[in-house]
């Protein structure tokens, strides 16, 4: 039986590789490429695409029916063959979707206070309860995430690479699930940071040091989350993040921007709001004078 791939995203898969099935979920499967140990993800057709993934049209079966952990997979010239079952995945006609974030400039006039307030309000409305009750663990997690993000913002405003490294260290792999909240915040922050060129003096050098610090701490988190961080470091993000930043940069209406933000919020259980928090934090640097004069920064309320 042959399954046809619907699309694939940049960065593209190598033209040939052997891999092992790493983990299987109903709508996603992670492959561990044998030479590099990089993870690549196969997804069921979805309206949000992620960098370096392959998207299938298969609809009748869950991925647990097709893949199992440890299964060998071989890929060559657009054809993937699954070990044991001999099933094939044909990627030769799959559409290529670019997940590279273009060089966008967002100025305070594009990122107006109205948009700032709208995103802030949206996050506050999507309160993320990591646990049902107010356990000590939850409170502690909230404090750490808030503090880590505050440190990231301060590090950029102060152009302080040492503080940035410390903030990344505090956030990486912090929280539950496959992509912990701290990692999601970092992904969002990296996306936002790539658009702030005009306001950060010597932006390129700072960004380079910042991304190399993320790389330095990559192995502190699990291999699945590592892959998303690695893509973010290289400028690749999910289509939901790209759409939101593009909408802001191109001066789209506030309604369109809000729609994009809401779409981003649909990612995972807590990932969407965490990514948006990181992205919002990075963009908020555009209002650094406002932030400095208002010590109570509204972004933090969204976890309460």
């Amino acid at each position, binding site marked *: 039986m042959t399954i046809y791939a619907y699309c694939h995203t940049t960065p593209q898969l190598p033209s040939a590789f052997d891999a092992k099935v790493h983990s299987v979920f109903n709508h996603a499967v992670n492959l561990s490429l044998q030479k590099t140990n990089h993870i690549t993800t196969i997804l069921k057709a979805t309206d949000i695409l992620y960098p370096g993934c392959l998207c299938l049209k298969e609809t009748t079966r869950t991925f647990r029916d097709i893949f*199992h952990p440890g299964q060998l997979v071989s890929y060559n010239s657009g054809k993937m063959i699954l070990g044991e079952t001999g099933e094939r995945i044909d990627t030769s006609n799959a559409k290529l979707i670019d997940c590279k974030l273009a060089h966008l400039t967002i100025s305070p006039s594009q990122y107006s206070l109205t948009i700032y307030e709208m995103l802030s309000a949206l996050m506050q409305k999507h309160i993320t309860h990591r646990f049902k009750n107010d356990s000590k663990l939850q409170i502690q997690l909230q404090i750490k995430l808030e503090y880590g993000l505050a440190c990231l913002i301060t590090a950029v405003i102060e152009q302080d690479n040492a503080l940035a490294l410390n903030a990344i260290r505090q956030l990486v792999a912090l929280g539950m699930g496959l992509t912990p909240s701290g990692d999601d915040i970092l992904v969002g922050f990296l996306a936002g940071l790539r658009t702030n060129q005009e306001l950060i003096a010597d932006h390129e050098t700072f960004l380079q040091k910042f991304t190399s610090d993320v790389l330095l701490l990559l192995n502190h988190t699990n291999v699945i989350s590592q892959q998303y961080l690695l893509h973010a470091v290289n400028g690749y993000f999910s289509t939901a993040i790209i759409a939101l930043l593009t909408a802001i940069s191109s001066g789209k209406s506030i309604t369109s921007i809000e729609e994009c933000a809401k779409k981003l919020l649909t990612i995972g259980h807590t990932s969407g709001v965490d990514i948006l928090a990181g992205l919002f934090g990075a963009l908020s640097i555009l209002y650094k004078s406002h932030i400095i004069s208002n010590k109570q920064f509204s972004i933090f309320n969204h976890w309460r």
Partner: protein
Amino acid sequence: MKTLQRLIPNLYRDSVSLMQLSEEIQSIEGITQASAIMASENNISLLLESGLLESSIEPHPNDLLIVVSGENSKLVEKAMETAEELLMERKDVVDSEAIQTTPLRSIQMSLEKDWEANLALISSPGTYAAAEALKAMSLGLHVLMFSDNVSYEDEVMLKKYSEKHDLLFMGPDCGTAIINGLPLGFANVVKQGNIGVVAAAGTGLQQVTSLIDRKGGGISQAIGTGGHDLSAKVGGITMRQGIRALAADSKTDVIVLISKPPSPSVMEIVLEEAEKAGKPVVINFIGADPEVISGNNLLGVPTLEAAAAAAVNLALGEKYETPRHDDSSDLKGLAENLVAGFIPGQAFIRGLFSGGTFCFEAMHLLGKNIGPVYSNIPINPDWMLKDVWNSYRHTAIDLGDDLFTQGRPHPMIDFRLRNERILQEAADPEVAVILLDIVLGYGSNMDPASEIIPAINKAHTLAKNSGRHLVFIASVCGTESDPQNLHQQEYSLREAGVTLTESNAQAAFLAADVINNIKG
């Protein structure tokens, strides 16, 4: 106090599964804290700082760490075993199915396995749902389509196909039905009987079938049509088919039709079909004037509750007369009592609904009695809320609207959003009444009272601290046979100071009476 930790190598679960597991273990008696989290350096620090881990361990970011803390070693060990079983159980079920049996990969394969099946429930993404439905019908199966986002063109095509081949097509976006006594989707456990229901409103169907059960009647079949069926584009194909099916069914003596008001042309052909049924047909076009319905065997009623009451009376061969709300001295007396304790300025109702039909019905009833009701699904376009996250004067919110459910389960399952909104409304000094619906049955939260009561208690405290008094009015949609234990749910809600009424309509009437009493 005893704490136990266990590391499971290379185990990956998403955050929802891990949170559910943590909550499940934490709810065991004698267990004070539990957590299942990836064993990264930062998470270990987090566990240490929150007192869940007693001493540091080596980080393993790709391994899952379970930590359980409780009253004694025995309890903690047992809870840890349960946690591991729950994690492995889920995995084993999947693996064993994949390895030992051939997975069912198509409707045809399912039919080969069970040739007696005659209904397919389709819940795939909307883009693919129409093709799957067509496949199912071409194999001779009736269809219930839970999926939404199916185009009008596809819906009409599927419904015409089903009509031509004498198959029932329920949907798209059909969340509830009861077929041959089997609840499908969100549905209540009701007694079987001689009343058949066709509804284009999900919680409307749940309210009517539950109330029929509670009033002593029973259901032969309850058919959902999907919310677009009575639009001009679709033409009520499924509702007319449902009427014909129930008319031909020897076990059905009375038919009930439920819908928001159809387009006039569709109403005409639906009523024509109903007249031809040759059995009593009770009709509630929610919010529409029941007087517009005429015909020898047709009875228009003003509320979902009245539809249930009329159906039960007619099924017993008795006459039915719609009671006037004004006659209900019980509600009037209750409203007078509830007013005591309000301070000047408290004047508005905030309805927070998990069922769209409940919200719609309440808005109509409130609108007639107290004036404009603002909403995210207003009955008058002028009453659209400018900001759906913030209420204005009298407001009723359908929290099941797509706007609120992105990235989170439906509010009948997940109470977080409604609980937050309850506190938001309680902080507003203009609010006098908070109006709620609680929906039981399959698919809904298994213990809604325990989910919502903490928020109600906090809301009462919040109001009390500001010298105010808040009134909570609610109705519970469910039956004694529902898995949630109706009596327990109602008892807990009453204990939390919630005034319960028999139906959503009564809750809305009572809320309106309270407001009118404030006005004096």
